[in-house]
């Protein structure tokens, strides 16, 4: 009897359901309706930049308030610059849909990751995305930690990073919010999904 159950469980559909149930994901502190600025008070991000730009801007940072207040923002977070799904699927899904975002009155489309702003800059240039969407670094993970979207990816040799997620935020209020079940998934955090939610 037990072996029959196990055999059926081994079929992919059952396995997926079991695995999803077993996956322990921490739940974010933000949800539709929350205020992203209040969730991350005093937190700043660093705009992707070259070192020279860093020096001339005195390594200035941009507060979460300045990024979101009074604006319509689509923001997506990913585990790491130069990694597979992030480079090959996540960023391209937003860059190739930029005109659709602009047509819906979106002020900023932002990509954020727990990387330093210099790595984000080099990566954005490599993806030829620097002039299309905005890139910010959350170098110490404080932004993601405040939103409870931090994730330890030490097993993948990445250290503390973030979940893969996307959000539509209007004047700081979260209107749509999507988080993948696992950071390697790419089912709910792409541009096509959030375009339907705007």
């Amino acid at each position, binding site marked *: 009897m037990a072996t029959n159950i196990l055999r059926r469980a081994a079929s992919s559909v059952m396995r997926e359901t079991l695995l999803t149930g077993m996956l322990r994901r921490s739940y974010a502190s933000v949800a539709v309706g929350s205020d992203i600025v209040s969730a991350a008070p005093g937190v700043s991000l*660093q705009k992707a930049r*070259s*070192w*020279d730009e*860093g020096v001339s801007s005195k*390594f200035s*940072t941009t507060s979460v308030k300045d990024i979101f207040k009074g604006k319509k923002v689509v923001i997506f977070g990913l585990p*790491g*610059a*130069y*990694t597979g799904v992030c480079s090959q699927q996540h960023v391209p899904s937003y860059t190739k849909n930029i005109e659709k975002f602009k047509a819906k009155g979106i002020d900023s489309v932002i990509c954020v990751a727990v*990387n*330093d*702003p*210099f*790595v984000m*800059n*080099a*990566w954005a240039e*490599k993806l030829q995305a620097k002039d299309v969407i905005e890139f910010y*670094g959350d*170098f*110490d993970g404080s932004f993601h930690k405040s939103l409870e979207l931090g994730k330890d990816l*030490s097993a*993948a*040799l*990445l*250290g503390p990073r973030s979940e893969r997620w996307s959000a539509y935020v209007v004047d700081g209020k979260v209107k749509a919010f999507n988080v993948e079940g696992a950071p390697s998934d790419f089912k709910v955090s792409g541009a096509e999904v959030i375009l339907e939610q705007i």
Partner: protein
Amino acid sequence: MPPIAVGDVLPDGTLSCFDAEDKLQQVSVHSLAAGKKVIIFGVPGAFTPTCSLKHVPGYIEKAGELKSKGVDEIICISVNDPFVMKAWAQTYPENKDVKFLADGSAKYTHALGLELDLSEKGLGTRSRRFALLVEDLKVKAANVEAAGEFNVSSADDILKAL
């Protein structure tokens, strides 16, 4: 940890990189350095100017000369993850000899006593700029820069120690 110095034994630790088959590997420092003459040079950050435009190219250019003086391995380490190190290494297509290894958690940099807090520049905990000459795990030269400088850790400087 106090900074590593001449006469010390090189601590063991784990660094990571992508191998020739593009698979993620974890490498023990001792496995690379035991019984050999190696140069380990550390940089604060991939894709930052002194690191990218001066420090690394110097070692790539002088690799031949260093090897002719008996150096078996030339290793560049940085507190970056292996994906970033791989992408950065790819910006040097002419490189054949310098290995780019990632100390993503800064654990090895701490073991060397060479960590530096660069949070103000948006970098977090990183490594100081340095160059070590190590023979069979014994440190023969330890050239550690003062913050922001590039005077003692270049390939030319280390050639003088050989």
